[in-house]
């Protein structure tokens, strides 16, 4: 199957694979997919679920500060749409997701809903030996909880490693003179988190051999929240303005291809490093500027969702550093999930700015 066909299938229905066999969902960017594969289950990234128009069921229990992704998962859960999943793993490093874990446990206790078994991946995130040790122990607990088979773990680690290598290849391609459209690259990245089949790898490998690229007239780096779909990319990319990279909590793992070592400890280290690397990068304006330079970005767009209350604290420093580096920068903070008319107008204005810069 061609890559575009695979992408369409995966992103249209991320739960497709869950209906034909044992499947375990997960919410968060650093959940150890290796363990799910080693448990002989299909991993289903629930952030790939399309946002539900009606969130009335979720709104009964979730306050307005929850992320749209968590709200969508809650809505689908309470509607019974996730019943095919055996369990769902929530990452402690995602503040909305980890709160949702406690809410769903409680709603199940009171018989307000059924659905999969909620599990917490208790990933620590401080750069300290005690936090690493805690993460290793949490990873072991999770492996036991989902029945990860030690005999399968090596193969699972290799699967994830191979996938990350492919995504690393995509990231390098985006940084080259002739780059694929950012919206396509981002669709690939989203689908890669939602579909762990070997068919996906084959399709991506084939596409990378003869990629569809174009020479951007202007190159843009997108920093901030994890876009739930390719809407921001599509809004940015007209007249050969191309998004050549993203810096967000989901995207920095590509360069962190894990070592060949096997075992749960190695898996734990990969997840821990991915989270701390993402967090460190987003709190390091100088590194963001360096990344923009490396991608030869003509401009930076900082796009932050209103529900990303932690990230919001980094906005002024990122803006200051980019402007000091004379990088044209558009700040779109406290944004709703869907691009507003005002945001679209600012993006159009920014493209004009890039033309004259």
């Amino acid at each position, binding site marked *: 199957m061609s890559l575009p066909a695979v992408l369409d299938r995966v992103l249209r229905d991320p739960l497709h694979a869950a209906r034909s066999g044992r499947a375990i969902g997960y919410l968060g960017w650093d959940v150890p997919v290796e363990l799910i594969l080693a448990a002989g289950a299909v991993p289903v990234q629930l952030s790939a679920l399309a946002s539900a128009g009606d969130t009335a069921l979720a709104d009964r229990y979730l306050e307005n500060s929850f992320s749209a992704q968590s709200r969508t998962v809650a809505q689908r859960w309470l509607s019974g749409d996730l019943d095919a999943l055996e369990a769902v793993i929530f990452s402690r490093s995602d503040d909305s997701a980890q709160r949702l874990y406690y809410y769903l446990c409680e709603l199940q206790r009171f018989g307000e809903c059924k659905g999969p078994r909620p599990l917490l991946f208790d990933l620590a995130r401080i750069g300290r030996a005690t936090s690493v040790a805690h993460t290793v122990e949490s990873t072991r607990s999770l492996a036991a909880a989902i029945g990860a088979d030690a005999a399968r773990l090596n193969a699972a680690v290799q699967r994830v490693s191979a996938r990350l290598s492919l995504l690393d290849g995509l990231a390098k391609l985006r940084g080259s003179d002739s780059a694929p459209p950012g919206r396509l690259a981002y669709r690939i990245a989203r689908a890669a988190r939602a579909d762990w089949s070997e068919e996906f790898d084959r399709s991506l490998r084939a596409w990378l051999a003869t990629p569809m690229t174009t020479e951007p007239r202007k190159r843009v780096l997108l920093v901030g929240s994890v876009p739930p779909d390719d809407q921001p990319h599509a809004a940015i990319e007209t007249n050969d303005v191309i998004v050549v990279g993203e810096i967000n909590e989901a995207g920095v793992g590509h360069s962190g291809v894990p070592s060949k070592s096997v075992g749960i400890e190695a898996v734990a280290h990969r997840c821990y490093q991915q989270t701390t690397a993402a967090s460190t990068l987003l709190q390091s304006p100088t590194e963001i500027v360096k990344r923009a330079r490396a991608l030869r970005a003509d401009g930076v767009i900082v796009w932050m969702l209103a529900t990303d209350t932690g990230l919001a604290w980094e906005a002024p420093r990122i803006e200051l550093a980019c402007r000091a580096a004379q990088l044209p920068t558009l700040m779109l903070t*406290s944004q709703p999930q869907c691009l507003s008319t005002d945001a679209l107008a600012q993006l159009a204005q920014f493209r004009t700015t890039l033309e004259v810069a």
Partner: protein
Amino acid sequence: MSTSTGGQRSRKDLECTAAATAYQRDFVADLKRRVIDAGEPFAIAQADTPHEIFHVMDIPLVTNQWWSAYISAKQLSKHYDQVLGNLGYPANRCRYCSLGLACTLDNNPRIAPWGGLPKPTVLVARLTCECIEHVFGQWATALGSEFFPLEAPGWQHKDPQWYRNSNERWEQVFEQRRIDLLVAEMQELISLLEDRTGRKFDEAKFLQLMLDINEQEGYIAEAAQMIGAARPCPVSIAEQMPNTMIPQWHRGSPWAVAHARRFRDEVKRRIADGVGVGGRERLRLMWIGAGLWHDPGFYSALEDRYGAVFVWSMYMPFAGPQYIRELHDRPLHALASRICSMNEVLHLPPWMNEWMVSEADRCDIDAAVMLVPPDNRLSQSGTKITEHALARAGIPTLALPADMVSAKDWSHERMVEHVAGFLRQEGLL
């Protein structure tokens, strides 16, 4: 358009309240003398961190939430909110934890309380929400200091009756692995403090402090039980708060223990004398959330006008289940069990809702008023599930979208009448 009209003072009836306020005034003057004038090493820490370590080492401590309330009481929250806005911080920032950072970034000694805080030895916070590491990290950078974060690990053993079991069976209730992690972190913190300040952590002194804290919290817990059972309610939450929280900032000190005893005794006297809050008690209310620091007169207004008495707020009844610990010859672990869930039990199900329902029943509550700050995920957390749980228990709840330290969009009169309207609608007035 943002509006703010009229935070008002609350009525104070207890001798203890005046004594606590006077002590705190002297303490603040002394803290300022030590930190500002004498330039002693000091620390800035969140309320849910192990203050006991600093107390044992005689290291002055500025608690962020107290400093925020202090700034707010000086009517400076609006100014510092504008400071953050002018610096480009997005509108969806939470305010409770960030007033201190704003004060430092403003760098204006003419406006700042004490002329602003100097460089502390360390800043300490548990990572209980996604904002705090950013706020404290940037605050530490701005002060030229170091941020020592503490993990807030997940909690998988869910004991809905935690408040009954926490004093003795804390290893099970709060999970051994979570306790062990915090103990290891506290040991690192102690080493850092010893290294930087030259002051020592005396284990014998720490043991005695833990015992004294148990005594102090025992008095407060006893008073909380008496208040819940008494008709009419002898002490408004506007007076429960200072008589609990001021000693809490100094927990285990001779003054704090003595004050807690004195408060318990005054409560007992008031009950024996049949003294109630305000004129007549028609309704018993529960206040869920942090104190409304910019308008403490809000509570008295409802009491005086409608006989709607706020019998319960979290601060006082929290002392029993969350602070008292059998030491089991492991005082540092006992301390960790006190700290490692201090925030979680107030903001996450099942701990929050189960405790609130139990307390509402204990105090014969007619209705609850819940503070839901619009831009603060942590403070919002658990409120809807708690509202549902209270509804199942027959307690109607009003959610007030307001901030605890920012008077932005707050109107004293409008809010008092809003609550009265809710009580009428529920057929309670």
